[in-house]
């Protein structure tokens, strides 16, 4: 029973990161009208920025966190004109061409990480970020401070996001664009400016994810971005592309499934098993569990 509870906590905290990443990804899809497949790779880049700043400042947590969030916002917003340009060049909004831009960004970032930081070796985060000794431990299973934090912050962040989406002027504009971009333009919503706001907001969520992943995994490596990108894309497709509530449910579910596999079965197979489960779901419901919403 204790193992079960521990793994549920672990799974939910991992899942809350998938949720944040899937939400940022879906926001860009719905409002900026791009498929930013490599959004999680950008997040991992920010993880490296956090690490560099922590190293440079003698583990100043505040500066590290600020640097992570800011770098994520900047990277997102800076990439916006590139995406917009490609979309304009192809005439009407064309999500396929944006996917190529995103993949290109992903490859470049991954290569930079493997060449320019720590000789390409995995990086490790200091204890003042990750929380040191576990809260409790049963055999190989443990619950860490970072896990509890990431679950708590993830829950607050996702709730705040939904409040913003449903209770604010910007959120209303986001929803209008996601339902009907031409109609949103017609009522006077500035499409480009609102699109940039969605880049910034997904940047904020990405930056928070970067911190939470560091707290949870205690390390990062150049390949982490691609691994997360695959999972986030899978979560989003299994949930139904653009479906925010779907992404919430499926993201948490994936985290829990992975943690349970690690707790009760061969941990090293957790990715394979998780993807088999998703394969079955997508064969059963090709448009995702909750339906595509674009």
């Amino acid at each position, binding site marked *: 029973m204790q193992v079960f509870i521990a793994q549920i906590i672990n799974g939910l905290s991992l899942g809350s990161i998938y949720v944040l990443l899937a939400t940022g990804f879906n926001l860009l899809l719905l409002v900026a009208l791009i498929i930013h497949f490599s959004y999680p790779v950008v997040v991992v880049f920010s993880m490296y920025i956090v690490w560099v700043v922590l190293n440079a400042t003698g583990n100043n947590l505040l500066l590290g966190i600020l640097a992570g969030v800011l770098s994520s916002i900047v990277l997102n917003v800076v990439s916006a004109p590139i995406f917009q340009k490609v979309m304009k060049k192809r005439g009407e909004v064309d999500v396929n061409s944006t996917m190529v831009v995103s993949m290109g960004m992903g490859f470049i970032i991954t290569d930079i990480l493997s060449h320019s930081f720590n000789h390409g070796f995995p990086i490790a985060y200091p204890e003042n970020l990750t929380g040191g000794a576990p809260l409790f431990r049963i055999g190989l299973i443990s619950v860490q401070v970072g896990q509890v934090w990431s679950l708590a912050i993830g829950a607050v962040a996702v709730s705040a996001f939904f409040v913003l989406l449903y209770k604010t002027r910007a959120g*209303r*504009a986001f929803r*209008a664009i996601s*339902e009907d971009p031409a109609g*949103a333009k017609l009522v*006077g919503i500035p499409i480009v400016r609102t699109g940039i706001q969605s880049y910034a907001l997904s940047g904020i969520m990405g930056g928070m994810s970067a911190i939470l992943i560091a707290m949870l995994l205690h390390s990062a490596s150049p390949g982490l971005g691609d691994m997360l990108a695959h999972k986030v894309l899978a979560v989003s497709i299994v949930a139904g592309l653009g479906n925010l509530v779907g992404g919430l449910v499926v993201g948490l579910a994936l985290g829990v499934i992975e943690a349970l596999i690690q707790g009760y079965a061969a941990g090293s197979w957790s990715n394979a098993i998780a993807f088999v489960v998703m394969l079955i779901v997508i064969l059963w419901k090709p448009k995702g569990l909750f339906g595509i919403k674009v």
Partner: protein
Amino acid sequence: MAQNETKTASPSGVPLLKVENLSVSYGHINALKGVSIEVFPGEIVVLIGANGAGKTTLLSSILGITPSKAGTITFDGQRIEKKPVDKNVRKGVCLVPEGRGVFASMSVMDNLLLGAHHNLQNKDKNLERVFGWFPILNQRKNQVAKTLSGGERQMLSIARGLMSAPKLILVDEPSIGLAPIVVNDIFTILQMLNKEGYTILLSEQNAYKALKAAHRGYVLETGTVTLTGTAQQLLSDPGVKAAYLGA
């Protein structure tokens, strides 16, 4: 229904909207070929034209959605033909689009607040006015728009436009797809709004009812204005009768 004695506005003074020699093409299709129209403050002006005549193109160029190739659009003393839609909405133009264009999965209230995107500081006052004119929308304010009937959606679309505090309301074929009795309601509402001081440029294939409600009209044929006059003149014009009034 439309009563002639209510038509007091006459084309005098400075036009609120002046379109001069406007040309618009979609690729090699010339949808508008040098169209000129004027709308004066306080008027209801109707664009009469068959399917494909260019009515939607003209209204969407005025708002700034469809770029023009040549010609000028002057609204409230300023040239707007190169301005983006959101600027024009802020200046006081709004479009009630063909097919209503409400956000079906969003609530009635959200739809109204989207209309007030640039005018949220006055939203309470405007909501009160709009709900006074459209009490049904007040009753349905928390329902999603797709649950509304066609007529209610048309009202929502008009009400959403009003939330932006417009000086000029462009209304594109409001009668399309509505039962005749509902069409009468919509024209009554447009006349009521006109009496409240709103200036309206309307497009219609339903020429009889539209001309009954309007002060003046333009007949648009394949991208060209072929006839213009007061609503009375157009109603009694033999060509208009034959082509648009089924006489």
